[in-house]
């Protein structure tokens, strides 16, 4: 037996992550979503260099025109190139999306992990707070915040993040609680491993899956919220612009110049579409039930 062992090559195993990637790569919609996300991120980063026109560049003589060779997506009533404006708007929307999601992620994961791991009274109190906040009319509070403290982009990040962290906290908590009951965590306890080692080696790697999925699904949710606020005039303020604001302008003139509404609308919808498909695909790929056998 030992001699056999010496001769055999070590076979490589496929981890659950590799398994998930294989599954994900078969899901064309999810890959499409991933592609769009990458494209968008790259374009947004490079916008100041690759945008065809300046952001504020007006051409009052031209006025609002439909799509043409010079202006692929047309111009608005001040003659500003729509493609450029949509690119800059995307930059802002995406930034808000990522940062607010990061805020939600940070608060949510910490909250949920502590509640789930400590358990007992602490958990009961922490989750009661989450339940109460879930029931509150947050939209209303955000509107209030925006009105009261002025339209501060930093505040916008915090406010939106403060709404979205609740779901993340719930998910992380339920995952951590389920893991704590798992036998391999008990085994780790019985081996005498310290709490921190258990968290680091056993709990966190097994929590990453749902966290990744819901982070991906939070980004479109956040972007939607920002667009909503901007549309109402309570979010991003001019001279900056976001897709929500562009849509607002577009609605005002939609009878005469429908493309001013349609193009930013498509940009927003397409992005949300892509991110949701990616999130769905990730959820299917990382589902432990189907990974088992």
């Amino acid at each position, binding site marked *: 037996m030992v001699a056999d062992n010496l001769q055999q090559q070590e076979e490589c195993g496929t981890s659950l992550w590799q398994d998930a990637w294989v599954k994900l790569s078969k899901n064309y919609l999810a890959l499409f979503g991933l592609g769009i996300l990458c494209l968008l991120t790259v374009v947004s980063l490079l916008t100041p260099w690759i945008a065809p026109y300046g952001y504020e560049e007006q051409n009052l003589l031209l006025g609002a025109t439909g799509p043409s060779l010079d202006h692929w997506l047309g111009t608005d009533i001040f003659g500003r190139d729509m493609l450029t404006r949509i690119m800059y708007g995307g930059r802002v929307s995406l930034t808000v999306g990522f940062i607010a999601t990061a805020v939600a992620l940070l608060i949510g994961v910490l909250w949920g992990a502590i509640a789930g791991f400590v358990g007992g009274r602490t958990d009961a109190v922490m989750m009661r707070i989450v339940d109460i906040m879930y029931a509150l009319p947050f939209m*209303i509070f955000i509107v209030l915040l925006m009105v009261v403290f002025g339209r501060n982009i930093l505040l916008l990040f915090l406010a939106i993040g403060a709404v979205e962290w609740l779901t993340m906290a719930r998910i992380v908590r339920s995952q951590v609680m389920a893991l704590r009951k798992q036998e391999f965590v008990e085994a780790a306890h019985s081996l005498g491993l310290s709490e921190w080692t258990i968290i680091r080696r056993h709990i966190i790697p097994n929590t990453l899956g749902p966290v990744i999925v819901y982070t991906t699904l939070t980004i479109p949710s956040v972007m939607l919220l920002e667009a909503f606020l901007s*549309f109402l005039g*309570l979010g991003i303020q001019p001279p900056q612009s976001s897709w929500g604001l562009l849509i607002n302008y577009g609605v005002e003139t939609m009878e005469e110049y429908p493309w001013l*509404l349609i193009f930013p609308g498509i940009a*927003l*919808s397409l992005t949300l579409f892509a991110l949701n498909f990616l999130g769905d695909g990730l959820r299917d790929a990382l589902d432990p039930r189907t990974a088992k056998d």
Partner: protein
Amino acid sequence: MLRFALNRLLQAIPVLLIVISATFLLVHSAPGGPFSADKAVPPEVIKALEAQYNLDQPLWQQYVSYLGDVLRGDFGPSFKYSGRTVNELIAAGLPATAELALYAMLVALVIGISAGVVAAMRPNSMQDYLPMSAAMLGICMPSFLLGPLLVLVFGIHLEWLPVSGWGDIPGDKIMPSITLGTGYAAYIARLSRGGMLEVLSQDYIRTARAKGLSERSIIFKHALRGGLIPVVAFLGPAFAGLLGGSFVVETIFQIPGLGRFYVQAAFNRDYTMILGMTIFFATLIIFFNLLSDMLAIWLNPKLRQQAGGNN
């Protein structure tokens, strides 16, 4: 069941108090008073107005007197619309918003649940992909995009439906309700599909099939009860969302409802309006959450017995 309801109502009181206090503090910490927007008003007049509205008193005094008023159901006078009280304005705007929310909820539930159940009956087929793609579209097209687009197509180009008002012209309730309800219909479609699929893979559905029951009976009698649980759980947040969504829809379609009043009050710094409406909304949402929680418990025999006490 009654004990449960009372229990939850009692728990709701501190929550309301927090809401009232937080809103009060928030509103009063805003830079500039309610009248600072009107530049044409001379300072002596501002002082007089402030005295009239008690704004010159220390904050805690204002808080206590306000609290007292609220408990008596009086939200005070509006700052912006002189001569009218907040109560009046809420009463004026409530019918439209309530109807809008109701219709939107109906649209959401009927379309959403049907689409979800139909999709779950034949997963991964066209019967599944079509409704679910439409649902994804519904989620990704926010109301402030869908509304204007509908107005553009059906109101302006085709001229089939009226583009504004509520109850003035027949048919003017259609587009707003659809606009507001579509996003939720989409979400509910996904939830009910997920719930139904989960239930249909359960052992007890296999038992029902083995007993020779028809597919209809299996879906409607055996599967639906469990499959709709995620939808019932969503009703509370959905209601809160509908109220928030009404802001946009009422603005787009010029509907004289609470949502539009609220946005205007926010812009106008109409303190009492904001306070009153926030409290009103919060109360509604808490109450609705309670109803949907009770519904969820009632639907589950095990929880129903636990809540109702011993048989």
